[in-house]
């Protein structure tokens, strides 16, 4: 089991009703975290339309998450 902090942004935060939570889960990749929390962030988008960062570094969805990591889940961006 890994202890992870998951942070939600924008639409994800509003749907989850929280901006962060701590999870004790058995997962390998960032993608696993995205899927596991899908009923929380409520995304209908595939992960490929969203972005993820691990410990304030932009990451690939296939990247392995480690015990103690903070996973930032970003809905599709719309800057500019």
């Amino acid at each position, binding site marked *: 089991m890994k202890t992870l902090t998951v942070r939600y942004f924008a639409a994800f935060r509003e749907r989850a009703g929280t901006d962060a939570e701590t999870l004790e889960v058995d997962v390998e990749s960032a993608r696993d975290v995205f899927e596991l929390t899908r009923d929380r962030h409520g995304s209908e988008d595939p992960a490929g339309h969203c972005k993820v960062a691990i410990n304030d*570094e932009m990451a*690939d969805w296939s990247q392995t998450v480690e015990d103690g990591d903070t996973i930032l889940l970003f809905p*599709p*961006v719309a800057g*500019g």
Partner: protein
Amino acid sequence: MSMQMTSTTIDTTALRESMADPAAGGFCVFEGWVRNENDNSDVERLEYEAYEPLCIKEGEAIIAEAVEKFGVRGAVCVHRSGLLEIGDCAVWVGTASGHRDEAFRACRYIIDEVKVRLPIWKKEHYVSGATEWVSCVRCAKHAVPDSLKSA
């Protein structure tokens, strides 16, 4: 070279002055303004949410790429967060270089990349009272380029 985030009005005059350079012959600016309409809905105002630590990091990376690719002498980008009214400047990009071609290309590169890579989200507040997070699917397709992956 710098990426800046601000929750107050972007001072475009001061930014222009900050880029003065006696060896620069070409200066290009792009500004994104809040429009009164999007996808046929009347917009009253916009709200930008940004995750600033990664906006700065990604923005600095984009600017460094533009300098590397186009050899510009100076490049600055400032993005707003918070509540914006129609006509407000949401993003400002300025590039200065010896000649115009590099300035134009670098400016375009920076705004294109900023729009798809910075963790910024836009909520439109419509005249009708409704609100909506804008999802830019075209942007999302751009996804995470290899250059950004931390692996």
